[in-house]
């Protein structure tokens, strides 16, 4: 599938609210403290609101439901939300849980971000479908997002 780089988004996760065993699985909410994003057509900061509502399913797969707000360097606000999946070999997932940096190709961490903005300069974001590859670092994930052409 043809795609082109949209941006990388680096998110700082500042703690988790562990809800625990809910009917659908293990629920934990990662709070977002901020971050940066950078790409050929937009750059700026991740605002310190938002979170990642994660659910560990009974088959061991982690579902991610991320919501955050981007602020471009020229002050446009952009809603970003994404659904994703993370899973991998037990040793890779255990290393992530211990806060280790591991090669992101050792596990599957993919999301589908969507965007909404009222700012005309960035209206192209309202009209695209994108896919992200995640790299889980100890202080939060780095997403490399590609627009599907």
């Amino acid at each position: 599938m043809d795609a082109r780089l949209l941006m990388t988004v680096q998110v700082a996760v500042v703690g988790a609210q562990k809800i625990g065993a809910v009917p659908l699985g293990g629920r934990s909410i990662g709070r977002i403290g901020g971050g940066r994003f950078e790409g050929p057509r937009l750059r700026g900061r991740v605002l310190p609101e938002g979170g990642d509502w994660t659910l560990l399913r009974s088959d061991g797969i982690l579902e991610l439901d991320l919501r955050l707000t981007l602020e471009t360097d020229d002050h446009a606000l952009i809603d970003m939300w994404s659904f994703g999946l993370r899973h991998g070999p037990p040793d890779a997932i255990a290393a992530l849980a211990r806060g280790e940096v591991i090669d992101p190709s050792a596990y599957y961490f993919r999301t589908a971000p969507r965007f909404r903005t009222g700012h005309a300069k960035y209206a192209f974001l309202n009209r695209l479908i994108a896919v992200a590859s995640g790299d889980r670092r100890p202080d939060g994930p780095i997403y490399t997002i590609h627009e599907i052409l």
Partner: protein
Amino acid sequence: MQTRPLMKLRLETGPTLDVGAAPEGTRVTFPIGGGSFDGDRLRGKVLPGGADWTVKRADGVMELDLRVTLETEDGALVYMTFAGIRDDGAPDAPYLRTISRFETADARYAFLNRLLAVGKGVIRTEGPEHALEEVL
């Protein structure tokens, strides 16, 4: 971003249900009467009963929200959804792209539970055809 082909999905759409001007936009539901899918790892038919619940937004882009049940040729049932957009104002219109997810209890197809797929659709006279690729 790397992908590999998952399947070609052909949907047969019935007469639309024109719900009309809803708060979020113009809502049109496309019932799915059937269809077929085939790829290296799975093939079969689309069961009747699903639909694509679409909304045309104020900026002219149509939001897609599809739910269907697939039945593989060896009898597994797979619940499939996609969310996507159709932009008839795009340079290479329509820009018809989707993100699919799957749920199945059949162990032979459990790999579907673990992947996201991206789709590129075209509109044919008999209905839409989506080329779905697994996001690797």
